[in-house]
């Protein structure tokens, strides 16, 4: 269903009356429950559906409120998948919410993350302007790259209405292997040698002395890789559980135990997620953009998109 006119009207009305809005997809993220006291909710869940999809163009255009799972099922029917892997909270996340959060899943270390998949978008800024940036083609450098700027913006710069996303052929097969290593560093070194061999890795995570590998590709290559790597085969469900944050770590907590994903680039604890040198993000309260680096520049960027502060969280007002 197309709710773009009503969404644009709501933003315009809020800008005119000085009201604050909190953009919500399906509200699937754990910290979304507490967002209600930060402003009037602006729900995108009824703004959904695939707008354009031609497999030979390797791109899909989709409304932001479309559930990730629904989109992935439609792509799978044509033997394709999203180039990015995004977390799926409780099986309900919307694609717009996933891009606004910008968390890239296990495959990102080998095949690129959310920012690498976004080719274009339609959005409403804080003035209620209906804007389109980027497009449906792989390469587009006309004007500044607002589409990718929106990745990780957490609803702060505007409402994403539609997304053009890169898609890729589905791998013919997928396997998961488990091996033990004394520490993260030694497991990372091993993974590097397999990357150098050209094995089609799509996941490398380390926790509790176990290195788990996921490989995706043609059967012949997976056979060669498995014979060389020599781990124990395991069900690939482990990876979808991690993706849905259904790993036991998130339910019971493991004390101070850490789970490293993306060959060490991402570090999960029972309560937080951290990427590279970035600050840890609490799973209870979500990303706190007040803690973002380059805060002064970011404030000017926020004002450039949302001069009236429609999307500014109440506590930052």
């Amino acid at each position, binding site marked *: 269903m197309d709710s773009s006119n009503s969404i644009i009207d709501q933003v315009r009305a809020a800008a005119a009356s000085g009201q604050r809005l909190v953009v919500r997809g399906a509200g699937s993220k754990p910290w979304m429950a507490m967002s209600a006291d930060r402003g009037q909710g602006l729900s995108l869940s009824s703004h959904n559906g695939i707008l354009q999809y*031609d*497999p*030979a*163009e*390797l791109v899909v255009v989709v409304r932001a409120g479309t559930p990730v799972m629904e989109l992935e099922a439609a792509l799978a029917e044509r*033997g394709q998948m999203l180039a990015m892997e995004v977390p799926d909270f409780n099986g309900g996340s919307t694609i717009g919410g996933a891009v606004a959060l910008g968390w890239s899943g296990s495959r990102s270390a080998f095949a*690129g993350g959310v*920012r*690498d998949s976004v080719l274009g978008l339609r959005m409403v*800024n804080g003035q209620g*302007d*209906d*804007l*389109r940036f980027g*497009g*449906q*083609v*792989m*390469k*587009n*450098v*006309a*004007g*500044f*790259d*607002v589409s*990718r*700027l*929106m*990745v*990780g*913006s*957490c609803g*702060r710069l505007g409402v994403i209405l539609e997304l053009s996303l890169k898609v890729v*052929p589905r791998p013919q097969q997928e396997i998961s292997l488990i091996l033990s290593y004394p520490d993260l560093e030694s497991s990372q070194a091993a993974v*590097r040698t397999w990357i*150098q061999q*050209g*094995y089609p890795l799509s996941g490398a995570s380390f926790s509790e002395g176990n290195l788990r590998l996921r490989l995706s*590709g*043609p059967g*012949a*290559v997976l056979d*060669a890789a498995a014979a060389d790597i020599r781990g124990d085969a395991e069900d690939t469900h482990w990876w979808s559980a991690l993706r849905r944050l259904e790993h036991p770590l998130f339910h019971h907590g493991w004390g101070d135990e850490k789970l490293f994903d993306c060959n060490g680039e991402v570090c999960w604890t029972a309560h937080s997620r951290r990427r*590279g*040198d*970035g600050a840890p993000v609490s799973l209870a309260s979500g*990303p*706190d*953009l007040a*803690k*973002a*680096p*380059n805060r002064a*520049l*970011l404030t*000017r*960027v926020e004002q*450039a*998109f949302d001069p009236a502060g429609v999307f500014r969280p109440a506590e930052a007002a």
Partner: protein
Amino acid sequence: MTANFDQGLDDALPAVDRQALLAALEDVLPADALLTEPEQLRPYECDALPTVRTLPLLTVLPETVAEVQAVVKTCAGLGVPIVTRGAGTGLSCGATPVETGVLLVTSRLDAVLSVDVEARLARVQPGVRNLAVSDAVATHGLFYAPDPSSQLACSIGGNVAENAGGVHCLKYGLTVNNVHAVTVVTMDGELLELSVDDLGPDLLAAFIGSEGLFGIAVEITVKLLATPPAVETLLVAFDRMADCSRAVSATIAEGIIPAGMEMMDRMALRAAEDFAQAGYPRDAAAILLVELDGHAASVAAEREALEQVMRQAGATSIRCALDDEERALFWKGRKSAFPAVAKLLPDYYCMDGTIPRAAIGEVLDYICARSEVYGLPVANVFHAGDGNLHPLILFDANDPGALEKSERLGAEILEKCIELGGTITGEHGVGREKINQMAVQFSDAELDQFRRLKRAFDPRGLLNPGKTIPTLKRCQEYRSIVKDRAH
């Protein structure tokens, strides 16, 4: 209406006191880093699109980041515009100087600072040449993926500013997908660190492709990839252009994503063959150069599938490079195609529109028809896999009106790309050259959003003024011309 700077249509440049500026810069730079005489400034008057030329007020060649900051602070204090220049291989007049501004050239900032083999990252200065990065890390079995055809000469700083692509970006992405962090000197002379790991909106991605309007990149951390263990390069010939176009979409539809997929039409392939003796079949209507890489077993499977797709699409011959030497020769032809075509007539104008793959055949027919109407030959050599066209319009600027005709034909081609759901530029950027077409591709509200984003980075508009984003006035003027043309 040309893209040339026009007092009445573009924002006026600030008046500058040259003597005061010179005195202030002499305080912060060694004498040999400051060029002031017309004969010293002449080599910097244009980039690789030489139809637009302007002498800068002064040129500076800083050797350290501290010198860059000192120059910027001096200019900011005196309200002097700055245009940054890398190697000057840009094709959209992005580094063309402005009359009352300083041209800051990064050529002396040319060190590879460090290579982290384990993290597969290299820290480099902006003036490092693109190919020098891959050369510096080759012994570790690594390479830097974005490979513009100008890679022998162009700088990493210029690549970041243009979000440059290359012949392998179908599989490996553009510059934005291969940069981990950038250190920027902003127009207040301060340092800004942007990284993919930063929380919040992706400011790093927004900086990449900002064409020198947001800041000066002074250090770039690029991602490196493992050299693929197996590579196959196929040279596929067709005796009909339409078959060749169809083969591109058919390959993708088959689930094959080659590392690169380049197309050349007859005029381009003959010129390249005469120039480089690459072994191209001179009688073909068009050729595809397709590269597959990865694990040997997957490359072998893909090659078999690819050959079948090509034969079904009507390929008349398929040759696979027998060794690295022949592979290098196949690519040499492609990478020297621009200079090779340039030998046919005194001048050429290179376009950069991108369209959905399915429209390649249609747009090539359109270009062919318009080329006849204008009486200007057009050669096509381009990144077919991602629909990024590079029609080369050939002309002789000494013929009265030929330059204007080439620009009009170029504008029509770009506007056709927009109509087909594409864009006016896939990798060369807008600069000054495509400033008019921005008014066709974007609405006033979108352009206004660009202007406000620019001011967030550079509130006084001193960095690369007049480039990339047209004024409201220019837009209104150009749109009315386009409308009249349609009537």
